[in-house]
């Protein structure tokens, strides 16, 4: 099977400041369909930069990026935007939701963008929020939700268009253990349904949920290996968070 995401000697050098900062230095990465990849590494090792480049939020300096057998690093900014609508779901640590829009509108927005009719977008939103136990908060503003609830809404929105790949950057970064467990259970559920996921994290216990662990150091991959799975119980029970 062809990889969903493939990078060839991907390089990113920030040259805005006084000295150029090489954030990513020649990364070769292949992610197969249905894989759950965790990216770990010390602060400043280029994890976020890599994920941003994979989603087209940041332009690469050199190298290639392939998505679903299509070369995408040469795309213009607007072409990237169009691609994101259908193929990429994003979930960050903070600021995932449009502050002014209700939870329902936030989740419907990607579907509407992808050209789904308002009626279908609504049905899809109801289904997603229902699955995440957020149906009764549909009309709330994001500011009225707890951090964990906000992340669940962000996840619902990222999945709204069944993207080829879900990119998440520290999705549990500011959550307490209970909320972390909820969000991780959701991630693991969608992974079981076949969703490809690339997740950046600091936390080894969070990373252990993935199939595969990629370690970055100073912008280079220093380790890439499958995680041996203890196949007992559910994801929530497996990772024992305090």
């Amino acid at each position, binding site marked *: 099977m062809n990889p969903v995401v493939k990078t060839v000697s991907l390089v990113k050098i920030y040259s805005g400041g006084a000295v150029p900062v090489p954030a990513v230095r020649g990364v070769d990465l292949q992610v197969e369909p249905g894989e759950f990849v965790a990216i770990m590494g010390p602060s400043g090792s280029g994890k976020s930069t890599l994920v*941003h480049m994979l*989603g*087209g*939020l*940041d332009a690469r300096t050199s190298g290639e990026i392939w998505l679903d057998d299509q070369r995408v690093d040469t795309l213009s*900014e*607007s072409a990237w*935007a*169009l*691609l*994101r*609508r*259908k193929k990429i779901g*994003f979930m*960050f*640590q*903070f*600021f*995932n*939701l*449009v*502050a*002014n*829009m*209700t939870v329902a*509108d936030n989740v*419907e*927005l*990607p579907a*509407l*963008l*992808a*050209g*789904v009719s*308002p009626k279908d977008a609504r049905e899809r939103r109801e289904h997603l929020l229902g699955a995440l136990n957020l149906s009764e908060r549909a009309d709330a503003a*994001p*500011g009225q939700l707890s*951090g964990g609830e*906000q992340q669940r809404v962000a996840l619902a*929105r990222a999945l709204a268009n069944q993207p080829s790949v879900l990119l998440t*950057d520290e999705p549990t970064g*500011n959550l307490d253990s209970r909320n972390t467990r909820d969000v991780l259970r959701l991630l693991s559920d969608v992974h079981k349904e076949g969703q490809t996921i690339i997740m950046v994290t600091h936390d080894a216990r969070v990373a252990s949920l993935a199939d595969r662990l990629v370690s970055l150091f100073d912008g280079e991959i220093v380790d890439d290996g499958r995680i041996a799975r203890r196949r007992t119980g559910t994801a929530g029970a497996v990772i024992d968070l305090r």
Partner: protein
Amino acid sequence: MSTALAGGRWIRADLRARKGQATLTVLAVAGIVAALITAVTLLEDGTNPWRNLSAQTDGAHVWLYTKDSPQVAVGEIDGVTDTAGPYRSAPVTVAQDGKKEPASLRAMSAARPLVAHPVVAEGRWLDSTQLDGVVVERSFASSLRLRVGAPFTIIALSGERHTLYVRGIADSAEQGFYPEWTPGLAWVLPTMLERIEPMLGRSEWVTGLRLADPDSAQLVSQRVVVMLEDQLQRVYTWREVRAAMELDNRLLGTLLALFGVVGLVAAALALANAAGGRVLGQLRDLATLKSLGFTGGQVALLLLVEHGALGLLGVGIGTLAGWGVAVAFLGVSVPPMPMLAIVAGTALVVLAAVGVPAWRGGRTPPIPDAPVAPPRGHLSRMARLALLVRLPPALVLGTRDAFTRRVPAFLTVFGLAVPMMMITIGLGVWSTLDGFLSHPEQVGQHASLYVKPGKLDPAEARRVAVEDPDVRAVYPGTDVNALAPGEARSVRVRALGTTGEPYPFPVVEGRMYGRPGEAVAGQGLLDLLGLKIGDRVRLTVGGSPLIVRIVGRTVEPDLDGEVLSVGLDSLAAKDSVPPEHYALALRPGADPGEVRARLLAESAESLEVQRVVNPADRLAVIRVVIVALIVVLALIGLANLLTASALGLRDHALDLAVLKAMGLTPRQVMATLVTGTGLLVVLGVAAGTAAGVSMVTGLIDLQGHTSGVGAGIGRAPSALTLTLAVLAAVGAALTVALIPARRAARAQVPVTAR
């Protein structure tokens, strides 16, 4: 299509989240547009009353006077849609308060005609049950100080006296205003006219023709001349009536143009600030939109549509409101061309003003958690100084805040400075108007009456004028036309005063003429002939040469400034003796109307006495507009302040939590915020006022220069006015700044964002 749907969602949500601010924006733009339309309408009505009177009365475009009722069908002439009359008309004299005024008494029936029907302003129209009723044209009535119900005594040509009673006062577009246009006009029933003037030979017939195309009036009147031949006494068109009514004064155009510019800048500012502040406050959401798959262009378009729609909505509402105010409250119709220009101009300005923030928003990088740059700078020297002298901590922190958050600080200062500058300019226009009224001599209106000898001997006329107790000085004068070298047209040479006793022209550059052969000129003349002060110019007056040296420039509101002023002794004797008229300067406080009446009585009605019309007299209404504009500008300034505060507070929320954690009471937090804003407010208001003062005279003078009036009319507002304005502005701004500060100080600020 899909983007439109999604974008629509976003716009709706955003507007819902800021209903108040959006409403304020719409209202500000609407206010400006309404003020501009009202201003243009009123000015147009003040300077060109004919247009509106003609519209109200469905006026005729050509008027012809015949000995008998016209026997040929003038109504059949090509282009004539309707005829008014013919009406019989008899010349009479009105005796009122010892004065005698010439009038023409017009027979009109109780049922008013469809075309050229007088519009009753006070009282009622003629009625067959009241035979001795008369309706008097408004300018004539006000010149005679007639009220409804007053007796109206007329003397027919036979010498017979009749007393009628004023039943109504009406407007008409048939002739110019009394006394510039004589005789005055009054309407009576046909039976009454027959009783007053039974002799048909002593009256004439008046017919009005309404045309499909007013521009064909000249052609039609030529046809009339050919058709009626010697039956015709005289014919004139609407152009002559309009010219007689028009206030030929460039100063008005000057003020109007200034107003338009002020309004447009204000509209642009209101929108740019609202949209700009909003976009800055929304960068994170815009980034999220991009990460969801909106392209940069789509985000920019979204913002343009949202904010542009608000602006255009404002333009629409403002147009309706301005139009409604003009038609419903002021009873004047709106001139179509200027209104279209205003609507198109503001619409363009709206889109341009919104375009920049929209473009900025479209360029937001799509990384949602991009860190907000920490405030640059540290405890400034000023704040350190404050700490040294042990000022309360709130003041120190506020002072620091004011200058470390650059973007909100800039928005606050700039957002207040520009409206304040505009307000100062508005006040300058006000004081310039005041200047016209209180110092007419500074715009060349030193004399308030002009006397032509008429039937009297010029020396006798002069004696009558000099002997009047209220006349301070009498200047002999003559206006002649002179051919300029190399110009196909003539310029006006105004000889007034003598070198021994010169007329006090308002000389703003160079000096007054001091001996024969010296002259002063208006800017328009200097520009026309390419002259400068010190140059010699050779003109031809009635065949004889006039060679003068220009020694000064005057403020010249007449004839586009194309006037050369000399002493009477600079003209050849054949042109200057005897003088054509005398200009009378009155003692301060004297009423020109009374002096005029006295002079007429003294000379047994043989003098022709004309009052000078002060341009500001017909312009009282512009002051209402200035006040309205100032209110709108003040609202804009306050709205800008709110935008900037909201932006500042958003970035500030975390710091506030820290301050509270450090032990500042809510009151101290509030004081901190108000100090920070207050400093910026004072800075903005002061900067705006200074800029306004330094620009206002320059702007008015620049306008004056291009219109030929010449520099030298602009007046800055008085120091007292300015102080009051600054205090009011700072006070209002601080009151407004208190609202968000209080809310922020009270709010339970979460320690983490979201």
